[in-house]
């Protein structure tokens, strides 16, 4: 259960959503401004403090996109956003917002609003929730919408509907599943078109120097993350589900922004500081797909972490080739085309196995987020694949943001049994 204060806040927001969406938005902005402020006062050097700092930055971005929606571009989580950062615009990323809403305990009213508007119950909860936030009038009208077809079909459904709902221009980056230089050229051409469209709509010029500066920061961020990952197998860190989600956002939407670079620098420092101590005697878990950081029972197992440690997530490092500031458009295209989430599942699984082994994982959890056909579809293959490589694997059904699709007690039993299994293997 969320804390009594959060629960109360969630109830008030849900009530206001029905009667006065503007007030509900104001309450969400106040809550996320508080998260933003709290992040600024974190002085410690550990992973939790780093997480709170970047979490504050992400919350600040949400607040900015709500406060000045005329400067906000609604994007999906896999859209490279360096163009948007370089033009001084703000990304509005409703899938990320869904996770924040779930942590504010007010998701129900939004999910129900979507389902009442004929969205299938089996649809991805992140997208269902974000449409509810939009169509209840809580999320304001952005400047435009831009999304990639990667990594899932939900983008092809939710974003066109939202573009129609808000009556704003919409651009889709079509990402072919074939990983080839032809595909890179095809995608890069679309980024040029998107840049022209952003210039037209915002009345701002895309300054090549600003773009270069953002790309240099992206490169530094990825470089630093790669160094931190190289140490990950040798150390124990006080990670949480939220820290893994923040890593995911830092290598995607926030890539190119100072907050993302700071997070990776903090992560590297924490890893270097932990090096002399080496690894603690905890079960080390590598995670596939998103994480249910709203769920108290999972927090008790993974965040309080008396017995286990999250050592990595495949999405956070699915495409971390070094950006080339001299070729920004091709860099963004290459990130999408050659990312492990594109193309056949075996690319994704092979890279995840490499990362899990580098991180010295004892086992893998394949998290089947409700409605995500991409991950549901590979779950049994993944189990077989990782276990053949010597990594016991748990396929765990759950939901990244909608408590209604979760059998809490069953998840706890599965997680605990898996940890016991891994301990026994170690012994």
């Amino acid at each position: 259960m969320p804390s009594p204060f959060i629960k109360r806040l969630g109830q008030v927001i849900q009530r206001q959503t029905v009667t006065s969406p503007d007030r509900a938005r104001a309450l969400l902005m106040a809550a996320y401004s508080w998260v933003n402020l709290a992040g600024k006062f974190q002085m410690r050097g550990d992973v939790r403090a780093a997480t709170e700092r970047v979490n504050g930055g992400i919350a600040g971005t949400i607040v900015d996109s709500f406060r000045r929606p005329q400067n906000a571009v609604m994007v999906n989580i896999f859209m490279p956003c360096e163009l948007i950062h370089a033009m001084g615009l703000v990304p509005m990323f409703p899938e990320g917002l869904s996770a924040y809403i779930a942590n504010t305990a007010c998701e129900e009213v939004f999910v129900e609003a979507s389902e009442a508007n004929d969205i299938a119950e089996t649809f991805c909860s992140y997208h269902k929730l974000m449409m509810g936030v939009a169509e209840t009038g809580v999320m304001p009208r952005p400047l435009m919408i831009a999304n990639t077809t990667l990594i899932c079909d939900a983008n092809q459904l939710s974003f066109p509907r939202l573009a129609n709902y808000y009556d704003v221009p919409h651009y889709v980056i079509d990402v072919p599943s074939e990983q080839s230089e032809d595909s890179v050229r095809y995608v890069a051409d679309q980024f040029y078109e998107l840049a022209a469209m952003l210039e037209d709509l915002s009345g701002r010029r895309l300054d090549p120097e600003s773009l270069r500066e953002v790309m240099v920061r992206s490169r530094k961020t990825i470089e630093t993350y790669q160094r931190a990952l190289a140490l990950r197998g040798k150390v124990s860190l006080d990670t949480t589900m939220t820290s893994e989600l923040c890593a995911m956002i830092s290598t995607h939407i926030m890539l190119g922004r100072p907050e993302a670079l700071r997070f990776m620098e903090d992560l590297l420092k924490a890893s270097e500081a932990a090096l002399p101590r080496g690894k603690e005697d905890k079960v080390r878990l590598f995670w596939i797909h998103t994480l249910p950081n709203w769920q108290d029972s999972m927090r008790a197992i993974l965040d309080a972490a008396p017995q286990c440690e999250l050592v990595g997530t495949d999405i956070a490092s699915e495409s971390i080739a070094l950006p080339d500031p001299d070729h920004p458009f091709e860099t963004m295209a290459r990130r999408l085309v050659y990312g492990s989430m594109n193309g056949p599942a075996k690319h994704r699984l092979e890279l995840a196995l490499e990362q899990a082994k580098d991180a010295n994982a004892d086992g893998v959890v394949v998290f089947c987020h409700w409605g995500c056909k991409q991950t549901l579809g590979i779950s049994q293959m993944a189990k077989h694949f990782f276990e053949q490589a010597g990594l016991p694997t748990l396929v765990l059904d759950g939901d990244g943001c909608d408590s209604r699709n979760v059998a809490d007690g069953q998840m706890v039993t599965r997680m605990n049994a898996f940890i016991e299994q891994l301990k026994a293997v170690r012994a």
Partner: protein
Amino acid sequence: MIHYSCKYAPIELFAAFGIDACLLDQEEENFERAESLTHANLCCHAKSLIQQSLDKSDVIIMDCCDSLRRVHDVLDFEGRQEHLYFLDLPHENNGCSRELFAGSLVKLARELESQTGKPFDKQRFFEACAQASWEFPQEDFIALLGGRVSPELQRSIENEMSLAVVNLTCCGSRGLEPLPEDAADMDLDSLMAWYAYALLRMVPCMRMTDVTGRRVLLEDPRLKGIIYNTVKFCDFYSFDYAALKDMTALPMLKIESDYMPMASGQLSTRLEAFSESLGLPAKQRSEKVHNMQGKYFAGIDSGSTTTNMVVLDGSGEVVASAIVRTGPKAERGAREALEAVCQQLGATPDDFVAIMATGYGRDNIPFATDTKTEISCHAHGAHHLNPAIRTIVDIGGQDSKVICLDADGEVSNFIMNDKCAAGTGRFLEMMARSLELDMDQMSTRGLDWKKDLTISSMCSVFAESEVISLIADNHSDNDIVHGLNKSIASKTASMVKRARGEAPFMMTGGVARNVGVVQELESRLGDSLFITESPDLCGALGAARYAWEEQQ
């Protein structure tokens, strides 16, 4: 033989190498094999495709959606095909995407050349392209739209409808543009550039970025109604359905299928009700002889839990009624109900002029003189009881429905829950069993609650384990029952919104006797519910009124 599943598959290219194509689209008895290789919540068509592809030698999968991408991954992982092709399909239809797609087609042609040892045969390609066409029928018709339907389901629908049914779902409407005049002089690259263009120019399915071309499906003046199919765990078409509702005034029926044999009772209820709302003649039945010497008119509603009967006299007044358990056989329950009303009236079955049957068991009642769906009968009964009613919420044993009425009491729209039991009387019975309460206690316990619990699970099985956890945490019965009432009310209110139901509302069915659910539902709807003393009898009353009116 190449096996395929998507209309964008380049089967004409295979024909150019003398390879015939076969569409994999059948239903499966169960998904045991597919679910052992993937996940239960994958699109049901994808699961059927996995099972049907496993023992095929040559299969092509288009990269058209997340589920089919994973079908390819599973087949690739299992490695049983001699040739497994996977073709990238652009989401866009513009110069760049056509060029990219044409490149993939040329690559495939080269691959086929080396595999078969045969050259690309232009003549065969042209013949195959000429055969790829579709057109609207020359008579009034019903369109099947939305997600693909299995041939088995299409046959069931055709059997129930008295108009022609045309399959325009994602896999129907496969047709190519006419070949260019200079096709014979074109080389392979130019022909594949045209072929890429022609494939991407087909009526778009919902995975394409620009779906405005789908409008053509609604433009034929002979189109009289739409049966809209969504496939369980395929998300594309619920979006299209939601948009279509605002775009067209044509009558629409939404069904959900899962590539397994469908419960025939539920499907035929919907199709018959749809036919009734279109004013189409009912399918042919053997005519029962009415006993013109009799003096009573009856309606009998054969539901999953109870069988309800209402009897009217010659002036249309209710003179008897009965509610009995249906039991395992609809016929036995119906006979018990008939005996009960005969006893009340001191009459025999020969005293009835007409008996109209409705409900799931309506076709299995031998003494009924006619049948009508419970959708129409509920509407008719409700309109008779209170002509102001515009929306009926009916929650029975195994299903829940929302029926919208116009000012004349005719059905203007209706929706029913699907196979899931959540939000039905069965759900409450399951939870009562866990709480060790009877149904009367379930009705009132939730009124006196202290802690506002939320039963969040959508699925009745999950909800049951949630209830058990709450019992284990020592929460009071009252609080748990209140949580359950909220859960049913929330699901039902959502259905009302989907159906665009308007006040005044009426509630019928056994669950209308549950005071707690009624109170929560009223609070969600922001309006009161009109409930009669015997809410279970509304459908039977409507049926009896139909029987009586037909003789007047």
